[in-house]
C-alpha cells in the first residue's frame, strides 16, 4: 500500500471552540492482577470538520479512548478521570440518560468487525431503522424510506431489497457500508471509526475510506479514525496522534508526521512498514522489545526500554516522565533535545524509509 500523504490541506486556523476536547483522560481497569492503566493522561482536541487519525499498536489505549468518549464504560468497573467535552459539555459528568441521548445522534461509532457488530437475528434494515427511531419519533414507513436512502448513499446496490436481508447475507465490504449507513443516518457531528477497515480486503479498504471521506465532506462531520495502519491515516487524516502505552507521544499534521516525525516510536512505526514501491533490500525492521505492561509500566519514559536512542545517564530516560504540551502544534513526548531528534531523523531514519 502506498503511503501517499493526503493531499488535503488541513483546515486553516482553528475556529473558536473545538468540537471535541479531551483533557488528561485517565482510564483504569481494576483487575485481579492489579490496576490496568489503559489510558494514562491523554489530551487532544478536534475541530469541527476535521479528521484525526489515532495510531498505535495493540494495547496503546486507542480503542479504550474512543469507547470512553462514547461513555461505553458507564456501569462497568472502569475508573475514568479527566475531562471530555463535546461542544463545551463535559460528557464524563453528564447523567446517564443525557449521555444516552447523545449517543447515535451527536456521536456515532463504526466498529471494526461488522459481522459481529451487527445482530445476527435482525435484518440490516431493522437495525438501521432502530438507530434512526431511537432519536426520531417518526412512523415506520418514514424510517424505512430514510434507511433505503442511506443505503443508497453508502453505495449499496438494490437497497430496497437489501434492507430486508440479514447481515450474514452481505459481503464484508457491504456490511461495513451498512454500518456506516447506520452510524451516519442521524447526521452526527462526530464519527469515531474504530479500525473500520482492518477486517476487510485491501481493495475494499480503499473504497470504504473513500466513502468515509466523501461523507465527511458532505455532512461536514468530524471523524476520529483509529487504526494501527499508518497507510490508512495517510489517506484521510488531517492530523495524526500517535499513542503509546496509554499516552500520546506525538501529534502533528499528516505532513509533519510523515516527513518530519520526531518521536523514536513514530520512527519505529514508519520503519516497520513494508514498502511496495521500493526494492526490498533488507528485512523489515520491527521495533525491538515487547509492548509494555499496563499494570506496571516502565518508569520514566514508558518507551525507554525499546528506544534505540535513549540516553539514561545524560537524559534520565528511565526516571523522568517527558512532558507533552497539547497546545503546541507538533508536541512530542520525548526527553531528547528537539534539534538532536531532527538530526537523528535526517541521518538515521529517513534514508531507510
Amino acid at each position, binding site marked *: 500500500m502506498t503511503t501517499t500523504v493526503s493531499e488535503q490541506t488541513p483546515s486553516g486556523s482553528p475556529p473558536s471552540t473545538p468540537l471535541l476536547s479531551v483533557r488528561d483522560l485517565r482510564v483504569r481497569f481494576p483487575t485481579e492482577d492489579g490496576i490496568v492503566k489503559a489510558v494514562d493522561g491523554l489530551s487532544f482536541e478536534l475541530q469541527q470538520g476535521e479528521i484525526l487519525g489515532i495510531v498505535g499498536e495493540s494495547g496503546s489505549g486507542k480503542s479504550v479512548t474512543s469507547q470512553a468518549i462514547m461513555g461505553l464504560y458507564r456501569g462497568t468497573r472502569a475508573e475514568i478521570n479527566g475531562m471530555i467535552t463535546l461542544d463545551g459539555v463535559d460528557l464524563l459528568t453528564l447523567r446517564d440518560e443525557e449521555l*444516552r441521548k447523545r449517543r447515535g445522534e451527536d456521536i456515532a461509532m463504526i466498529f471494526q468487525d461488522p459481522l*459481529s457488530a451487527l*445482530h445476527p*437475528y435482525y435484518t440490516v434494515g431493522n437495525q438501521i431503522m432502530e438507530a434512526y427511531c431511537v432519536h426520531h419519533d417518526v412512523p415506520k414507513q418514514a424510517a424505512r424510506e430514510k434507511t433505503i436512502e442511506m443505503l443508497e448513499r453508502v453505495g449499496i446496490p438494490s437497497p430496497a431489497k437489501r434492507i430486508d436481508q440479514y447481515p450474514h447475507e452481505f459481503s464484508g465490504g457491504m456490511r461495513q457500508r451498512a454500518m456506516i449507513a447506520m452510524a451516519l443516518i442521524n447526521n452526527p457531528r462526530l464519527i469515531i471509526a474504530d479500525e473500520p477497515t482492518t477486517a476487510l480486503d485491501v481493495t475494499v479498504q480503499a473504497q470504504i475510506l473513500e466513502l468515509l471521506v466523501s461523507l465527511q465532506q458532505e455532512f461536514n462531520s468530524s471523524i476520529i479514525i483509529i487504526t494501527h495502519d499508518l497507510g490508512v491515516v495517510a489517506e484521510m487524516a488531517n492530523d495524526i496522534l500517535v499513542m503509546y502505552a496509554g499516552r500520546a507521544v506525538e501529534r502533528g499534521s499528516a505532513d509533519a508526521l510523515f516527513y518530519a516525525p520526531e518521536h523514536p516510536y513514530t520512527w519505529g512505526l514508519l520503519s516497520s512498514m513494508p514498502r511496495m514501491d521500493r526494492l526490498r533490500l533488507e528485512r523489515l525492521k520491527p521495533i525491538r522489545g515487547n509492548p509494555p505492561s499496563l499494570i506496571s509500566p516502565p518508569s520514566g519514559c514508558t518507551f525507554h526500554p525499546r528506544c534505540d536512542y535513549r540516553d539514561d545517564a545524560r537524559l534520565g530516560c528511565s526516571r523522568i516522565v517527558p512532558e507533552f504540551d497539547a497546545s503546541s502544534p507538533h508536541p512530542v513526548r520525548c526527553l531528547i533535545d528537539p534539534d538532536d531528534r531532527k538530526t537523528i531523523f535526517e541521518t538515521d531514519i529517513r534514508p531507510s524509509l
Partner: protein
Amino acid sequence: MFAFVVRRVLVGFIMLFVMSLVTYLLFFAAPTDPARFTCGKNCTPELVEQNRKALGYDKPVLVQYVDFVKGVFTGREYPDDPEVAKTAPQTVVHCPAPCLGYSPLMSQNVTSLLASKLPVTASLAIMAFIFWMVLGVSGGVVAALNRGRFLDRALVGTALVFYAFPTFFIGLWLYIYVAIKWQLTPVPVYTPLTQDPAAWLAGLFLPSLTLALIFIASYVRITRAFVLETLGEDYLRTAQAKGLEKRKILTKHTMRASLTPITTVAGIDLGVLLAGAIITETVFNYDGLGKLAVQAATTFDLPTMVGIVILSAFFIITANIIVDVLYAYIDPRVKYS
C-alpha cells in the same frame, strides 16, 4: 424445508422399527424366563412351559417380531386361536390397527394402556416445564446480570445444591415434610384435568416441582452461561453506541439472542420427559408412563415394554424435529442442508 421435515420423519419411522426390534432381541437375551411372571405364585416348569406357549414366546424371536409388525398395520387377535374364536368369542381381544400388542400382565391392549397413562405424564412434564422455564431461566438471567455479586453466587450455589440431590430424595422429603408433616399442601393425588382443574393443579404441584428442581438447577447455570456469552457480544456494544435504552438492549438484543438456544434445549428436554419421569412418578405414586415402564420391566411384560419404547422414541424424535425447525426460524443464519 418441507423436504427436510419429510426426510427426518421418514428416518424417524425407521428408527422406531429398529428400536422395537432391538427391544425384542434384548428381551429374549435376558436370562430370566418371562413366562414366569404370568405364572403366579406356584410356578412349576410345566406351568411355565404352558404359559410360554400361551404368550407366544415359544416361537422364534424373529417370527414373533414379524407378527408384531404385522399387527401394527393390520391389527391382531388375542388369543390367536381359531377354536376359541368359535367357542368363546367374547374372550377374544380384538386389537385394532395400529396394534402395539396386548399385555396379559395388565389385561389390556397396549395402545389404550399407554393412552390412559399419557395424560398423567404429560401433565407432570408440562407443569415441570413451566416451573423450570420460569424459575430456571429467570434465575439464570438474574444471576448473569448480577455477575460476581452476592445474588449471582447465591443463585448458582443453590442451583448446585439442588443439582446434587437425587430426585427420589427430594421427592420423598417434600412428600413427607411438606405434605404429610407440615401439611402445607394436601397429599398429592392425581386428578384428571377434565374432572377438576383446580384439584389437577393442586395435585401436580409437589411432583412437578420435584421433577423441575434438577432442571431448574441446570437451567440456571446454562441460562447464565448463555446470557453471559451474549453480554460479551459486540452487537450489544453497537446497540449501546446507537443510544438504545438499557431496557431495550436487554430485551430485544440480549434476551432474544441468549434465550433462543435455551428454548431449543428445553424442547428436547420436554420431549424426553414426556417419555416418563420414572422416579418422580414412583415416589408420588403417579400413574404415568414412567411408573408403567418400571412395572413392565420388573414383570417382564414385553408388549408393554415395546409400546413404551416406541412411544418414548416417538416423543424424542418429534421433539428433535420440531426443535431443528424452530431453530431455523429463529436464527436466520441456519440453513437446511
